[in-house]
Structures are given as structure tokens and as C-alpha cells.
């Protein structure tokens, strides 16, 4: 019986991108459904009643919510190809730790960069760069966070790369000048088709953020 895989998503979402990358890495065919977050579909509300959020992976009618949980699920179900987590337990713990760090730190810090002005924004930029520098430090001279192969931590972070143009424009700063190694890593990831096809266009993201700022009166 063929697998039925559906992804409920919203194009600019970094979380949705993680699942898209994982599915692409594994070569899994799926139905992509774009949600209107101002008018959430009955399916979304039924499949994620607790959080009512995207992304939701639906595999043979059963929902998997929370992007990193869905990525691990994909890795465990389609385990023959392109492993996302390493096999060594210690390396797995490290991959999970850094993916979790990205979740705990990057989203909130990044949001503060585009959602604030003046002194608040300067402080937000400083905090955001500090977090990126911690990640850069962890990357070191390795091609990917996990070493030679692209994996969980890379997947957890790379989606933010298509948001960098918006952050830099609204924040009036250059991420590359502060974190050149991280940008080099991002460009390396973008050479992978699974990544380049899954990330949103930076101008689409910029327009989306501009729209949100207008709606929230944050210009």
C-alpha cells in the first residue's frame, strides 16, 4: 500500500521548511497544502487541536505535530535512505541538544530584531548575533553541524537563512560580517537540492514580515 503523506504548512515558516527538507532528503512524495493562518482549515484544527499550528505532517491519516518531532519521525520511518540523525548515541544527544538550542533561542531573538525599533532593536540585534556566534562556535571548521554529513541540527537552523535578508534590512546590519563561517555553512547547505527547494524566497519572506509589521502597527 502506498504511503499517503500530507504536509500542512505556511510557506514562510522555518518550522515547515524543516519537514520539507527532511521529506526531500528521503525522496518522499507528499501533498503540500498551504494554510491561510487567518482562516485555518478544519483539517488543521482537527489534526492539531492542542496547538492549532502548522506545520503538521499527516502520514496515512495520522498527524505528527511539532517540526523536530516530525523530522525524527520521518528519519525513523524512512530509515533506509539519507540518515538525519547519527547512529552513535552521544552524537545523537549532541544533535538533539543543538537543535533544541536553536528552538529555544533563535526564533524569539530574531523576532525581536524585526519587531522593535531604536534602543530595543539594538539590544535585540546584539542578542541575536551572540546566539548565532554560539552556533558558529559549535560548527567550528566542520562542513555541517554533525560533521561530514548534513543532519538534524543543520535542518533545524537552515530555514532561518531565507529570513536573514528581512532581518538585515529591517535591522540595518550585516549578518555575514559578524558570522562569516555561519553564512559559508548556509551557502553550503543551499547547494543541496533538498534545501534550496524547501526554503522560501527571501523577498517573499521580507514582504510577509512587512505585512505583519503593518498589521501590528510596528513600522
Amino acid at each position, binding site marked *: 500500500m502506498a504511503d499517503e503523506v500530507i504536509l500542512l504548512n505556511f510557506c514562510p515558516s522555518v518550522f515547515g521548511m524543516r519537514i520539507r527538507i527532511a521529506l526531500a532528503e528521503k525522496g518522499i512524495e507528499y501533498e503540500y497544502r498551504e494554510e491561510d493562518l487567518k482562516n485555518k482549515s478544519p483539517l488543521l484544527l482537527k489534526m492539531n487541536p492542542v496547538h492549532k499550528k502548522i506545520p503538521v505532517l499527516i502520514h496515512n491519516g495520522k498527524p505528527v505535530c511539532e517540526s523536530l*518531532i516530525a523530522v525524527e519521525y520521518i528519519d525513523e520511518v524512512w530509515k533506509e535512505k539519507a540518515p538525519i540523525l547519527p547512529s552513535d548515541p552521544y552524537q545523537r*544527544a549532541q544533535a*538533539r541538544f543543538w537543535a*533544541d538550542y536553536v528552538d529555544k533561542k533563535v526564533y524569539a531573538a530574531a523576532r525581536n530584531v524585526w519587531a522593535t525599533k531604536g534602543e530595543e532593536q539594538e539590544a535585540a540585534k546584539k542578542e541575536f548575533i551572540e546566539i548565532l556566534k554560539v552556533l558558529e562556535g559549535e560548527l567550528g571548521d566542520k562542513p555541517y553541524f554533525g560533521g561530514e554529513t548534513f543532519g538534524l541540527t543543520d535542518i533545524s537552523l537552515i530555514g532561518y537563512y531565507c529570513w536573514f535578508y528581512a532581518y538585515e534590512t529591517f535591522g540595518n546590519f550585516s549578518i555575514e560580517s559578524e558570522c562569516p563561517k555561519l553564512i559559508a555553512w548556509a551557502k553550503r547547505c543551499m547547494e543541496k537540492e533538498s534545501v534550496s527547494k524547501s526554503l522560501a524566497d527571501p523577498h517573499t519572506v521580507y514582504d510577509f514580515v512587512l505585512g505583519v509589521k503593518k498589521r501590528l502597527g510596528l513600522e
Partner: protein
Amino acid sequence: MSTSDVKLLGGWPSPFVMRARIALNIKSVDYEFLQEKVGEKSELLLKSNPVYKKIPVLIHADKPICESLIIVQYIDEVWTSGPSILPSDPYDRAIARFWAAYIDDKWFPSVRGIALIAEGDEEKKEAVQEVATGLELLEDAFPKCNKGGNFFGGERIGYLDIALGCFLAWLRVTEKLNNVKLLDEAKTPNLCKWAESFCSDAAVKDVMPETDKLLGFAKVLMARFKAPPAN
């Protein structure tokens, strides 16, 4: 492996540390429990967890592992001869992880919110309602996970039992300190029965703090938290 090969940096009151201890007990792993002094962080802790500087930290053959749920998964993956902690089916694993994340991201912060944040009756009532809503969700999830057994993990304690059960002592302390009932047999009968089974389990009994001891500790902590900063 010798005991000194496995060290756990932690403290008896911490529910997050308890998660690691329960997991080690399930696998019958001997370990050295290095308790941090409250209000002070040891050199070893700062060196082993430079990012967050928090307990628990599991140190296995000199390599540190941080974040309680990551530690539990690590223990499950290393000591494979003992009973499994995570379910074997990928979908069941995803569900267990989902609820554990819910507990950490939403539910436990609302428990903490009752004691620490809520000032006045209205705010407190809201915080209590948030905790109750979370428990009702978990009550509903229980029959979907337990496959007829006493635990979320089935016949034996598993990942989600550990993720939730570690908070039971703090839940009782919060009830006593705030004169509220959070775990209510009328509203969440499955969870109440589960809580009893959990607390009497061999892997849990010795590491679950006594409510009165924890209450004493909580009072000291709250006094410190609410005290004006020293000049």
C-alpha cells in the same frame, strides 16, 4: 562499568534531575550522584554545561549530556539490555515526544506560574485553570497511549510517564501552598490512578521527594525569590 564512569550532576528537589535518575534506575545503572549546592554552581557544572549552566547533566565516560529529556533518550539508547523507555513504534514515539514537549513548553510553566507569578485571586484562578486544562488533555491522551496498562508507556513506565511523573511532588506542594486542588479524582480519574502507580514504582520510589521535605525547600526558595535584592 564502574560507578565512577557515570555521574549525574543534580539536586534532589529538581524534577528534571529526577527524570534522569528514574531512567538510570530503569536500566539498573549505577551512578555517582553529585549534588549541587543551592545557589552555587560547581566548576564541574559550569564546565560540563557552559551553554545553560543548569542541572541535570549526565557525565558518561567524561562526556557531558545536557537537557533532561535528551538525557533520558541517551540512557535509553546506550543501555539497550534494560527495559525500553521509549516506545518501539515510530508513531507512538512521536506521540510520547509530543506530550513531553507540551508538558515542558506549556504545562509545567503554568504550574510554576501559580506560585511565582499570580498575584491576587483573578490571576491565580486563571493559572489554576491553565494547569487543569493541561491535565484534562493528558487525561484524554492516557487511554490512547497506555494499551491497557497502568502507565502511558503501557505495562511499564516509559518516556511520557517520566516526563510528567517527575512533577508530581511539586504539584502536591503547589496545591498545599496555594490551597488549590490541581489533581482532582473527579476531573482526571485516570491520572490520579496513574499517579499512584507511578509513585510506587520501584524506579521512582526512592527518588521522589517526600512532599513535606519539598514543601520546606519550596518555602525557603520562595522567600529567597521574593526577598528584595541585598544592597
